[in-house]
């Protein structure tokens, strides 16, 4: 009797399994990350579906690292699981070149020329655009204006690293729970290495020479990393080697950091009174320079692309045009608020007086984005494109390996010289294996 019940339950479950596998028609599956702007877009699925009743949107939200590996697996095996995917400036040109992405051709109404040229170039390969930017970011300084003023100091709009060190020293007050500066230390090519690369660029360093040989053992890299480790050791919060964007955002919003150099997107969080205890005293300045201003601030754009394996290209393009258009920015501005519009991609956004009034960081963000140039980001000529990364497939593994060494140096487990020597060996091995030389 009992066995009969178990068998019935089993059969019932199998039936439910079979029944729930049914798929809807003209369904676009969109893989994305859990960023504020992306979440906002998901909330307006209805608006798109109303305008396009034959298309249904299905969202798959994944953690950034998982999204990359998931999307890479799917695209490399032509799995066809996704019709639209969220990718960054690193992936777009590499995957485009490999033929993994569909070339994007927009209608005239879309105003593709309104997208910042540097962003457009960063998402293109061989002159073809492979991803449409949803929101973009550079890096800049966010600091506590009240503390700088109290210390009798002044932050120039385009400071040098010497200026920054002086100010950080002046506002560092751990007894009152305020650390002079917070910077990324968590290992990862998109974590600590994004920041360290911009610092190294400003010191005149670069990832690869013109012959593609890694340059991590150069005096410029040593000077830059030594400065980074010293600055954070003296004036940073304890455990900096584990800090990334969110950890530092939490610290600064709690008033524990005097200065932060990171993504411009953070400006909207730190100046939001609902999130930050120091929203009204936060000020902005451009990323610091040293030997050169080239490559001192990064450029990144979370973008939407259509994999070549998708069989719904026409519908996917409709969605891309909607989500990354001027009209979408206006729609969010009017319906949600001008402080919540996706920024960093279109010049027209920064010409809108309503946006400029709502976002006090707008001019600093615009200046940062416009000054970044992925095609000319190093003091000496380099063979690669990208500010905080080199847009080659091998960079990801090199960046991760070097990031771990930098984090170890910051934690005091190895010296800067040792960390750079190990990094150089790892990078050299990877580049040789990939037959760059």
């Amino acid at each position: 009797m009992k066995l009969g019940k178990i068998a019935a339950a089993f059969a019932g479950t199998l039936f439910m399994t079979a029944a729930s596998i049914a798929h809807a028609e003209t369904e676009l599956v969109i893989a994305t990350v859990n960023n504020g702007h992306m979440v906002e877009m998901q909330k307006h699925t209805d608006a798109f579906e109303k305008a396009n009743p034959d298309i249904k949107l299905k969202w798959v939200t994944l953690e950034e690292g998982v999204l990359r590996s998931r999307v890479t697996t799917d695209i490399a095996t032509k799995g066809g699981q996704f019709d639209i995917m969220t990718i960054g400036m690193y992936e777009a040109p590499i995957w485009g070149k490999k033929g993994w992405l569909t070339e994007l051709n927009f209608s005239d109404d879309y105003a593709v020329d309104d997208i910042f040229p540097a962003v457009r170039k960063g998402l293109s390969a061989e002159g073809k655009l492979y991803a449409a930017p949803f929101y973009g970011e550079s890096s800049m300084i966010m600091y506590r204006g009240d503390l700088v003023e109290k210390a009798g100091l002044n932050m120039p709009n385009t400071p040098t690293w010497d200026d920054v060190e002086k100010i950080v020293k002046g506002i560092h007050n751990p007894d009152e729970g305020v650390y002079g500066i917070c910077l990324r230390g968590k290992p990862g090519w998109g974590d600590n290495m994004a920041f360290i690369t911009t610092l190294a660029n400003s010191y005149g360093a670069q990832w690869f020479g013109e012959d593609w040989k890694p340059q991590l053992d150069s005096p410029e890299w040593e000077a830059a990393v030594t400065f980074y480790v010293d600055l954070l050791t003296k004036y940073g919060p304890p455990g900096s080697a584990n800090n990334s964007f969110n950890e530092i955002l939490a610290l600064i919003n709690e008033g524990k950091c005097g200065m932060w150099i990171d993504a411009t997107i953070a400006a909207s969080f730190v100046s939001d009174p609902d999130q930050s205890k120091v929203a009204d005293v936060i000020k902005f300045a451009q990323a610091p320079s040293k030997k050169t201003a080239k490559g001192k601030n990064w450029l990144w754009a979370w973008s939407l692309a259509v994999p070549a394996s998708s069989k719904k290209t026409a519908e996917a393009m409709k969605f891309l045009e909607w989500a990354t258009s001027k009209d979408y920015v206006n729609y969010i501005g009017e319906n949600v608020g001008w402080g919540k519009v996706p920024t960093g991609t279109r010049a027209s956004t920064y010409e809108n007086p309503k946006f400029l009034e709502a976002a006090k960081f707008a001019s600093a963000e615009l200046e940062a984005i416009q000054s970044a140039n992925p095609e000319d980001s190093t003091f000496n000529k380099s063979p690669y494109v990208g500010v905080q990364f080199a847009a080659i497939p091998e960079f990801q593994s090199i960046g991760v390996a070097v990031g771990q060494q930098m984090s170890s140096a910051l934690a005091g487990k190895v010296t800067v010289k040792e960390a750079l020597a190990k990094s150089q060996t790892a990078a050299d091995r990877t580049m040789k294996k990939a037959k760059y030389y």
Partner: protein
Amino acid sequence: MKISKYDWNALFVTRTVASWLVAFIVFFPLLFLMVTAFKTELQAIAVPSLWVFEPTLENFTEVQERSDYMRFAMNSLITSLVSTILGLIIAVPSAYSFAFSPTIQTKNIMVWMLSTKFMPAVGALLPVYLLFQWAGLLDSQIALIIVFTMSNLPIMVWMLYSNFKDIPHEILEASRMDGASLWEEFRHVLLPLAMGGMASTGLLCLVLSWNEAFWALNLTSANAGTLAVLVASYSSPEGLFWAKLSAASLMAIGPIIVFGWFSQKQLVQGLTFGAVK
């Protein structure tokens, strides 16, 4: 040496305090998660952590609004339940054969089965992904059921094997001498004796399948995601998400905690005492 009553009391108190301390340390992350789920994002990042605050349910509301919780929960329920039943259907006869009719190769086969667990799952990702792609099973509950069943089978066979080994061989022989068929032997003799072990094996595998994240994240997209996928979707590279992530986690583990609570007697008994000890 005689131990005085005072020493006994001291020993008892020390052991009790130590037990509670260990239990608290083990439980603390869960407690922290539960508390964080009822905070606002700003309260969640407060340093030092807030333990007294006005609780809010806004995170749960947002998780429900943003994600179709019931769909994820149904996927978890179906995949874990069916994979456990399927696993038991395969593992019970295998373990029976290994325990009561061993051959010269039994030990080697058992070790070989276990050795499949030595390799990290990611090592098999690409072939498994391609197989399911070829079979048109990507993003389906069937794919997850197959993978969960396969990955739990070695544990199931081993657990049932050690359980069956504890059953005196003579009891089964006696039933055979009385003319019982194989099915009758299993149904009327083995099953009542091994029910505890089989229940604990099933429960453990149910919990393992429910919490499995690697395959669920890699083989599903829009339709077959389990609660583990729902939780992962609340991690954010840029923005505060601790409170919402905690709420999503609490909603994901809630059903299995309740289930574990009610079945803890069988689970602990099966894991610690075996069937007939």
